[in-house]
């Protein structure tokens, strides 16, 4: 199927804009609502997100700690993940 070059170009631009917007938006998922100060402290540890828009999302299922999501990147520092890793280690120690 051949696409009209103009339509193709517009689609490309739209996807790129979407990707840039996704990259610029950084979600910090925590078990409770984080204060601005706490968010700043967290982001200060990750200079690559210094210019990004930060959004806090609450998910009690992570138990504690936080998860940083940016696009396809995921930095998981939650207690749920820690427990998951512990479980994995226990399995592997068999």
């Amino acid at each position, binding site marked *: 199927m051949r696409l009209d070059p103009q339509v193709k170009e517009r689609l490309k631009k739209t996807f790129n804009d979407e990707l840039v917007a996704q990259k610029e938006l950084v979600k910090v998922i*925590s078990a409770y609502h984080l204060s601005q100060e706490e968010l700043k402290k967290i982001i200060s540890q990750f200079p690559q997100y210094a210019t990004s828009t930060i959004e806090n999302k609450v998910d009690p299922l992570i138990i504690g700690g936080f998860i940083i999501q940016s696009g396809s990147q995921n930095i998981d520092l939650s207690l749920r993940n820690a427990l998951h890793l512990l479980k994995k280690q226990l*399995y592997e120690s068999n």
Partner: protein
Amino acid sequence: MENLGIDIKLLIAQLINFGLFFFIFKKFVAGPFVSVMQQEKKKDADRKQILEDVAKQKETLALQEKTAKDEIHKKTEESLKAVRHAAEMEKVLLLKKAQEESGEIVKRASKQIEEERHQMEKQYKENVAKVSVLAVEHALKDFLTEDMQKQVNTKLLSNLENK
């Protein structure tokens, strides 16, 4: 001679008579009689010889029969011994084979048991780990207050700063 009462003529005639008698007797009576006697004697000797030969042959035959019987007995014993030996060897081989097979079966069974035991142990450990982690997860969800969660975050950030 006449004084002695011997008549010479008569004496000569008697001598001639005796000579004739001797000659005729020897020629026609004594000769055939002796010949018959010798033939009978020879026949007796032949019969005796034949009897002796027969006896000897009997003895030889008996000896040969005994030897043959002994030989047959010996051969039979040897054959039986060989058969017994072969049977014994076969028995030993069968026993050895059976022992090897049973050993192999035991080995396989032991290996299988060991594998199953290992698998069960692994499963048990996995379950224990799963239940333990689940219990900790539930406990943390139930008892972790916001302050505690803040402390966790602070600790995490301090760890990140130290890195």
